[in-house]
């Protein structure tokens, strides 16, 4: 009976048996971080890898996880200085710069969170302002009151978009076999919303054609940013459908902002 078992070609699957270590070290170059980890099974590249491990920086962040409620688990994602953040803002406005390369080692969540929050307040405040100016210009007799539900709508839309769309793309990318890191996707989508902050300032002007030009330009720049970075992120795999859908989604968001808030 034992002969039957030992004849099974499974010896390469044993990760913790010392006899297999020599075998592992020959393949070590491809999976140097996983060879020491006895929990990776099988140790050879059988197709399973921890999420985000091709980008080595995630290992350190994953290891310092101390539970959902501990602040120190999240501190690695806020490890940025003012000048780094400002640099990322600027490179998000020019789609030509390689944003993905910049955030590869140190993705941060400070940018996405505070850009979304700023955008929520700006849309609510400036949307009301713009509606007031438009109303005053076109129908000077109607009463205008401050519509506080703009805050609710802005919060739902912006936070929902910035949270849900990267998650959806993360699952889609994993389904299609690419290695994706959720943090980097959140980071990129968050910074892509930055261009709407100054453009919403410009959208106050009560000239309708001017508003449309501004939002189309901003939407185009933002969508192009998302598409370019997504493409360089999933380097190589031919998933044009995903890229085009990301581009369209961003553009739809831009149009929605104009239509809902800056009537």
């Amino acid at each position, binding site marked *: 009976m034992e002969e039957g078992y030992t004849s099974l070609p499974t010896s390469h699957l044993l990760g913790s048996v010392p006899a297999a270590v020599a075998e592992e070290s020959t393949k070590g170059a491809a999976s140097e971080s996983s060879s020491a980890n006895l929990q990776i099974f099988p140790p050879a590249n059988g197709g399973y890898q921890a999420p985000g491990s091709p980008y080595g920086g995630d290992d350190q962040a994953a290891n310092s996880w101390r539970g959902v409620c501990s*602040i120190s688990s*999240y*501190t690695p*994602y*806020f*490890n*940025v*200085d*003012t*000048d780094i*953040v400002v640099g990322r803002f600027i490179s998000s406005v020019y789609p030509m710069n390689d944003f993905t390369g910049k955030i590869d080692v140190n993705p941060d969540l*400070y940018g996405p969170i*505070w850009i979304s*929050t*700023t955008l929520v*307040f700006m849309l609510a*405040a400036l949307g*009301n302002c713009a509606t007031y100016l438009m109303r005053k210009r076109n129908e000077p007799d109607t009463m205008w*009151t*401050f*519509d*506080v*539900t703009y*805050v*609710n709508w802005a919060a739902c839309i912006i936070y929902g978009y910035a949270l849900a769309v990267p998650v959806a793309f993360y699952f889609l990318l994993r389904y299609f076999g690419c290695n994706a890191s959720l943090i980097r996707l959140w980071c990129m989508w968050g910074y892509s919303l930055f261009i709407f902050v100054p453009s919403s300032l410009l959208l106050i002007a009560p000239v309708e054609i001017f508003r449309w030009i501004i939002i189309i330009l901003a939407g185009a720049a933002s969508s192009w940013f998302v598409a370019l970075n997504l493409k360089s992120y999933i380097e190589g795999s031919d998933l044009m459908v995903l890229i085009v859908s990301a581009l369209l989604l961003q553009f739809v968001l831009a149009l929605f902002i104009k239509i809902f808030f800056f009537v």
Partner: protein
Amino acid sequence: MSYGGAAPLHQSSQSDIDEIENLINDSVRFGPATILPARPPSSPRASIPVSSSPFVPSALHPLPSSNKKPLPHFAVPSFSAGPSPQGIATDGLGPPTNTLTEPIWDTVKRDLTRIATNLRLVVFPNPNREDPGKALRDWDLWGPFFFIVFLGLVLSWSASVKKSEVFAVAFAVLAAGAIILTLNVLLLGGHIIFFQSLSLLGYCLFPLDIGALICLLGSNVIIKMMVVLVTFSWSSWAAYPFMSTAVSSRRKALALYPVFLMYISIGCLIIAVD
């Protein structure tokens, strides 16, 4: 009774046990007719340290040693007659005070005095502003609570439609905002005490409260904008030293920007409701 032989009790639980003992002893010794003297304003209370503050040694460390001060700083002065667990001497003025049996007016007066003191320290110019440890050692949450609710109420009164939504938005933004701002500083690697920061951000709302009240009474948009501008700068000036010293200097702007964002949004809300 000192239970120091077993696992040492926390100071506050030891003080609670002492307080209950004193109460029992009081009622036995003095009978129901005694009025215990009022307590003086309380001392620095046990802050809940999230992380240690390297530049506020005076705020955190004296806690164990302040027990030894002769004046009844804590709620537990020990009895000279009974077993004295921590060696706190009474002030010699008679039976020790108990916050459980003092008149309500004394409690309210003490809390109001503390609110006024904290307000003076935080919002008005005083020589201790640059030291964040001294600024709000005796933090409390009553003051911030009053200011937030007052601001929500004033905004709600000012609004002509959807009053309850206005109150809800103002209250939610301020309450959640204070918590999120504190978490932001902690995540950026700063050193602050969570509740002290909540308390400070609440106290810094006081100028905006005044601004909202003035805007409630007046109606011209230009005047409203001037008033809000002045009170917003006052609030930001009050919050600036605390927040900027809490994080490293390279990240100062990252910690301060959300504070300005919150105050600006409340300022816009004040201008806009009419």
